[in-house]
């Protein structure tokens, strides 16, 4: 692990993102902590409604106008981003933190060539470069994301490219200013499986080349297993379990993590029936009073409905928020 003296690249502490006010206040993100070390990938797993996308928007300073950061700190290399004015945040976005999204087509302007769009991204942070220099840098970026014959593809329009190629262009744009942190929000969900693995490989290779850190948000445990060093599992606005990838995939403690791992059919197993998590994720305006997973939990006891468990250590940095963990006997 890294030297304990140097602060981590990103440290999120007790972050809350609220919508509405008074009795109608809902918390999409409710007291989340997260640590991302330089050069590492932190995977965030959650289903819809878990608050994982809102967390990433909060880190980017892009919480929608109807919501706000109610409390907490977002420290990037020691500097708190949570209270920064929009202007200063804008300078950090793109330069120190970049983001890629699920659907590359909506983030690209269909009317301009990708070369032009890349040039804009380059120029935004380097105003003195000449047109020729910028074009060369755009081509170089396309080469770095392994787009074949970049000299020709630089003049393509987005619609002339496949989904995988467009996601490569988005990655090239994100890389254009050498960010220290890349937030990837479901970047492969819209892609075909054979293309997905290529993009995941590319992201890892680029990480090795540049030493950037990544936050990788996804609903797919298989994808997390392929890219992440550390993993946090989110449920209904909270982190229910966090640890190294090995902790999570081989020694999961929280019943929700266990449920997610178990309910996914696998090629190397022949199960007659899939284990399931009953019920559905509660909406943010109707959360259970105690542990948020309690109504769906196979191990729940009356205690679980009474109070909300905090994260407890299970060796090293492995934390889980469950009264019943480690599960040894069957609840009655």
């Amino acid at each position, binding site marked *: 692990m890294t030297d304990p003296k140097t602060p981590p690249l990103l440290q999120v502490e007790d972050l809350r993102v609220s919508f509405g006010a008074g009795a109608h206040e809902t918390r999409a993100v409710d007291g989340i902590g997260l640590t991302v070390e330089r050069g590492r990938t932190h995977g965030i797993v959650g*289903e*819809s409604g878990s608050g994982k996308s809102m967390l990433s928007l909060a880190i980017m300073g892009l919480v929608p106008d109807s919501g706000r950061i109610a409390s907490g700190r977002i420290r990037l290399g020691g500097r708190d981003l949570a209270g920064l004015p929009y202007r200063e945040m804008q300078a950090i976005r793109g330069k120190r933190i970049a983001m890629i999204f699920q659907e590359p087509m909506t983030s690209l302007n269909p009317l301009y060539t990708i070369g032009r769009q890349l040039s804009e991204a380059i120029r935004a942070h380097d105003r003195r470069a000449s047109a020729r220099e910028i074009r060369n840098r755009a081509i170089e970026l396309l080469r770095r994301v392994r787009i074949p014959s970049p000299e020709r593809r630089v003049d393509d329009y987005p619609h002339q490219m*496949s*989904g*995988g*190629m467009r996601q490569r262009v988005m990655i090239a744009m994100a890389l254009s200013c050498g960010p220290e942190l890349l937030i990837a929000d479901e970047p492969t969900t819209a892609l*075909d*499986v*054979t*293309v*997905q*693995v*290529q993009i*995941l*490989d590319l992201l890892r290779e680029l990480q090795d080349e540049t030493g950037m850190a990544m936050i990788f948000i996804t*609903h*797919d*445990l*298989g*994808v997390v*297993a*392929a890219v992440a060093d550390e993993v946090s599992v989110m449920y209904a606005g909270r982190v229910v379990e966090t640890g190294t*990838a*090995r902790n*999570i*995939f*081989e*020694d*999961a*403690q929280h*019943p929700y*993590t*266990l*449920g*997610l*791992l*178990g*309910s*996914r*059919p*696998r*090629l*190397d*197993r*022949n*199960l007659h*029936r*899939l*284990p*399931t*998590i*009953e019920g*559905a*994720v509660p909406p943010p305006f109707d959360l259970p009073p105690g542990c948020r997973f309690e109504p769906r939990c*196979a*191990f729940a006891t009356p205690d679980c409905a009474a109070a909300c468990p905090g994260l407890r250590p299970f060796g090293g940095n492995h934390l889980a928020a469950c009264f019943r963990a*480690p*599960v040894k006997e*069957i*609840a009655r």
Partner: protein
Amino acid sequence: MSHHLLELENVTRQFQVSAGLSRGRGGAVVRAVDNVSLTLEKGETLGLVGESGCGKSTLARLALKLLDPDAGTIRYNGQDITDRSRSTMRPLRRRMQMIFQDPSASLNPRMTVGELIEEPLIVHEIGNRASRRARVSELLSLVGLSDYHASRQPHQFSGGQRQRIGIARALAVNPELIVCDEPVSALDVSIQAQIVNLMQDLQTGLGLSYLFIAHDLAVVKHIADRIAVMYLGKIMEIGPADRLFENPRHPYTRTLIASVLSPDGKRRQAAPATGDLPSPLAVPEGCRFHPRCPHATDLCRRLDPALQELGEGHQSACHHAASLPTIAPPEAKRQQPTPAERRMGLAIQARS
């Protein structure tokens, strides 16, 4: 003589694609389904996998005659239904139904859940008002919903519940065949398992046959008896599920299997696929997979291979099907279950 429940023979369907702003002729032709033959037996689940643009959704619609084929024959229970008109198809629709990928888009927002589930019964003139209402509540409980849900509208439900409504609707007329077009891919992971289990229970209970279309290999392997792999409109490999996974005889199937990311904490060994999916507008000459294929030879560049029988109904459209190197099948049983797996076992026990 016994018939296949559903049989497609050399079915082809193409679409005219208009070229950008210039309207009218001059657009390219996409052969979405290209000379496909397959059969589905009673009580069986045939999985159909492929990536986007492979024509699997078009094939689903051809199988139900929601689209007409340009060439080929479609038989249902031995009857040729290729040239049946919309109105002569209608009585048959009682026996074949469909479940859609996006349950929110496939349910009319202006109807209540009760009306939606009752509609197939009305259309096929089954029962009277009272008996239909009784059937609706029976169907609701069959798919794990409650009676009082009947008066609500689809938007008041979660994605998983909407898919249950879609399933109840498809089951209303007691069909034999259900074509499922990516029924779980729009759902959250924990909900997917619920729906897959429900569909399996219904199949055992009601003797249904499924044509199950998905891009998720793991789901298809779990649910299907036989699997067909499609690529750019053509079937590349078809066979019993176990055989196909243990001994895939087409490089594309191998690519797909290698692309499945398993949450076992272990990284994949090597990058399984090269290159991008070609556009369906420009299907490569010869074998359509050859530009991405590690085993491609000159023959593959020239000649489009036909499906060849490899025994037990296992067929592959690869010139080198027989000579492909054997690969280690995914380790079926690992020695020791991880602590997480033991805890999962406890969770399953606690549930039951």
